[in-house]
């Protein structure tokens, strides 16, 4: 059928369109709107794209600049990441002790799936509050990797870092007698030649993508530096410039 013929066709109206097709069409519209709205409101991508070329060195001052991207919609809450983290990093089995967890969100009025799972861990921020507030430099940014580390012998247990962290990423480990937190398995895996963290390695759904943000060929770099899909960070208003990003799709 050419274009002229198409114009001659009579309008059939919407009366005969099945209900399922109508719903699918509406869903598609909402999804597109949602992506645009989400991209505008939440995404850090627009900021990144504006800044990336000129501010590259300033933005990713570490080499390797470790980062994680969460493909949030892939998470099924199997908790294998949490189990792997506990086993690898000797996290004690007491209430409130974890380096990473999965948060659950119900959106009861959503169309389609109403449940989301949001994995969280230390965001290894570029401007971390925890290191600024620590009185004894017991927590600090690793000069090479940018990972927020703990020097447990210096920790006095004032817990100000816990107060300062906008991501609830820290807890006091009574066994170590120091605050404990995720360090991207730098001592338990990366130092032993492994290329990823225990949680990323254990995830069967490929939710957690770990990599070096300073390398343009890394998956984390490619995901963060694109504009097709929304990429966001948690609590951007805290101004800590986190290195854990979230995306869907």
């Amino acid at each position, binding site marked *: 059928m050419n274009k002229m013929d198409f114009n001659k066709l009579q309008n059939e109206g919407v009366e005969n369109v099945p209900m399922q097709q109508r719903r699918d069409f509406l869903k598609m519209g909402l999804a597109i709107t949602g992506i645009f709205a989400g991209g505008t409101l939440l995404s850090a991508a627009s900021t990144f794209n504006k800044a990336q070329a000129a501010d590259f060195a300033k933005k990713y001052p570490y080499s390797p600049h470790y980062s994680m991207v969460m493909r949030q919609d892939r998470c099924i809450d199997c908790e294998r990441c949490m189990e792997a983290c506990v086993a690898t990093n000797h996290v004690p089995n007491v209430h409130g002790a974890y380096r990473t967890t999965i*948060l659950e*969100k119900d959106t009861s009025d959503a169309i389609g799936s109403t449940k989301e799972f949001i994995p969280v861990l230390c965001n290894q921020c570029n401007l971390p509050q925890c290191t600024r507030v620590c009185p004894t430099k017991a927590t600090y940014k690793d000069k090479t990797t940018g990972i927020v580390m703990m020097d447990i012998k*210096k920790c006095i247990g004032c817990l100000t870092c816990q107060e300062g962290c906008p*991501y609830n990423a820290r807890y006091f480990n009574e066994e170590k007698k120091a605050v404990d937190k995720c360090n991207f398995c730098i001592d338990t895996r990366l130092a032993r030649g492994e290329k990823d963290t225990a949680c990323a390695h254990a995830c069967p759904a490929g939710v957690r993508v770990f990599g070096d943000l300073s390398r343009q060929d890394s998956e984390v770099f490619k995901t963060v530096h694109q504009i097709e899909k929304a990429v966001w960070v948690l609590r951007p208003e805290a101004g800590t410039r986190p290195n854990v990003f979230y995306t869907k799709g």
Partner: protein
Amino acid sequence: MGLHFTNGYVRKKRLQIILLQMQHIIALTVLFHHSYQSKGEHLRMTNHSAPTLNELVSGVVDRLKSAGPLYYLLLLITLSLVIASAVIGLLAMFRGHEHYYNVTREIPWGILISTYVFFVVTSTGLCLVSSIGHVFGVQDFMPIAKRSVFLSIATILSGFFVIAFEIKIPWRMAIYNVISPNLTSNIWWMGTLYGVYLAFMFAEYLFLLMNKHNPAVICGFSGSVAGILAHSNLGAVFGLLMGRPYWQGPYMPIYFIASAMMTGCAVIIMFHILGYKINGEKMDGDMERALEVTTKVGIMLICVILFFTTWKLIAGAAGQPNGAYPVVMSEVAGHHAFSFWFWEILLGMVGPLVLFILSKGRNLKIMLIASISMIIGIFVMRFNLVYLGQSLPVYYDLGVNEFKEMLTYSPSIYEIIIAAGGFGMTAFFFLLGEKVFDGHKVEHH
């Protein structure tokens, strides 16, 4: 080892020597004190006729002997509180805090932090209000100097006592605060400056006892500066946390200083009236005048803090700012409303304000009731401040199931006992100070 004794006789002798040395240390402490009482007879010392050690010790002993059974009972109760809290604190330290304290990952700071804040607020307030007289030369405030400076030392020590059990590994602080300081940390500045403050307050008190005015003024001024810096840094510990909108901003350091002075007035009024009751003495005109002006300053500062609190609430409600709005609403009309309106506003400020005005700064009974009410209210005020700032989960706006509700915390019995130990320590020092330093009398010139 020096403490390895060979037989009972030598051990007894050495103990006698140690006791004698302790007696001398106590005597040296009171040596600086100019006036003392002996068996009801007032002996006025002068710089030219220094008393012997025996005279000083016997003066203290006589004053302690003259005290009634209630005094000793109170001394015993307060000391028992200190010992009980020290035992529990040490148990928590070595057996694991999670067994004793109700603080959690999400609310890591509980009543021990708020009690510490309360004591350092009080100490700073005592220092600042008393400095109006003996540092800045306003004559009316002169008579309250000695007792206030003594109490500022007692309260800061009580604060340190409580925080020692709140901080999980305090001995590391002693080492790494010195060899690994973090100059961007408000906690570091606060700790260090409070150390400096304590040293100046000690020195100031000694100079006041020795009646050496100029060095006392220098130390008092330096102590006030260190106190303001330390205390505003404590405010900044809360105020500069970017992830806690209820606290965040320049409000906290400013509020802390004004609030310290308000607390200082209440504590000065209460302890001076109680001090005179304990010693069974009547206030002279100068002291009455000093308490009258302190009450007036107190009235002004209550108004200042009411003004601050009002705007804090409006700022947290107008435009419903993220992070602050739910907390302010819980404070005004929610879970914390009773604690806020009854304890903080009514007992802590409005009630005392009315009573102070009614007392005209002269009715000591009303002033005592007002100041006690105010101190109770301010203690709850500090608790609310620390608790409320943490009550909103950091992931609240994310809307996740785990953090949809405000967080709750109530102190464990062990935390309450340790906090009470802080009060016990202040009360113990106060009671002891009244007798050892003879009602902190001030020389007339």
